[in-house]
């Protein structure tokens, strides 16, 4: 319940404040969003499995975002930033799909 309220508040804040992202961070924001999405879906799945722990969720959320950003940063330094960010998005996308599949089985038994 509170999680849904948090979601709504975040959307409203983003729409109202329209923050300016620093130019240096612009390539990392989409990757960070995808990594955070992965963490949230993983947490939801763990919750449905009955093994959810908020500390683990916080750590996984933060580390997911940081590691994804770091990989892209490293890729940018190595000159393969575009390819690496594509790879990160693909991997995270696969994880999101598998998590969503598990969630779907829990909720709909299908």
């Amino acid at each position, binding site marked *: *319940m*509170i*999680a*849904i*309220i*948090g*979601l*709504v*508040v*975040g*959307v409203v*804040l*983003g*729409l109202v404040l*329209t*923050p300016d*992202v620093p*130019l240096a961070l*612009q*390539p990392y*924001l*989409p990757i*960070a*969003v995808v990594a*955070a*999405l*992965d*963490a*949230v*879906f*993983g*947490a939801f*799945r*763990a*919750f*449905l*499995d*009955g*093994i*959810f*722990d*908020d500390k*683990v*969720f*916080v750590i*996984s*959320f933060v580390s*997911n975002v940081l590691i994804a950003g770091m990989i892209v940063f490293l890729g*940018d330094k190595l*000159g393969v*930033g*575009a390819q690496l960010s594509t790879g990160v998005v693909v991997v995270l996308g696969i*994880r999101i799909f*598998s*998590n969503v599949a*598990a969630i779907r089985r*829990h*909720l709909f038994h299908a």
Partner: protein
Amino acid sequence: MSPPPGATPAEEDRPDDVPGENPTGLARLRRSFLAPSRGQAVVALLVGVLAFAAVTQVRLNGADDTYAGLREAELVQALNGLQAASRKAERDITDLETTRDQLRSSTQRRTTALDQARQEVATLGVLAGTVPATGPGIRATVTDPKGDLTLNHLLDGVEELRNAGVEAIEINDRVRVIAQTSFEDDPEGVRVDGVLLKPPYVIDAIGDPGTLAGALDFQGGFIDDVKMDSGTVVVKKPDLVRVSTTRKPVKPRYAEAVPGQ
């Protein structure tokens, strides 16, 4: 497949779960809606952050900043395209400038030629007597009280003036004397180009005044000759002599200009 983040293999404290029970995920979800907890608040915070970032990114992506999010390689490619376009534009500019310069120089040549031709027309017009002329010179007034002066006197005077480099001659403000001018005797005076002139003769001559006056006035010259036949010559040097009589240009019947000279 790695285990989902947020899952721990050994869960110690499950505040939402009653120990000993193993409810389904759906039931746990239903229960958590009714019983908020500290974990939910943390989840709400992080989900809020995620939503905030996602909305920001969507807005950024929708914004019309074509080059802001591009990487180095993509920017280099875009730059290359722009450079090629700019090189092409520069070539076009050079071509057009060359054309413009050519047109300008040809116009200039034409203007110069036209100016030269105009100047020549003016010069030749003075010599041919087709245009009025003005300039420094002398005005010689020849009186002939006894009627003893002949055509030869006048011809002598004109010849002396010509030798002195006269540029335009007019007699009695009526006849312009040029290369083809004819002189005839007449009982009442002289006929110059068929025009009857009676004394006194007024000769307007444009040229260097000193030279012209000297050409008429020397020992045994024009003035002496006239005086010998009881005439008088008065030579004045006005600042400006006007030769206003003009002739129509006559097209030569026999002589033809040799082209290319």
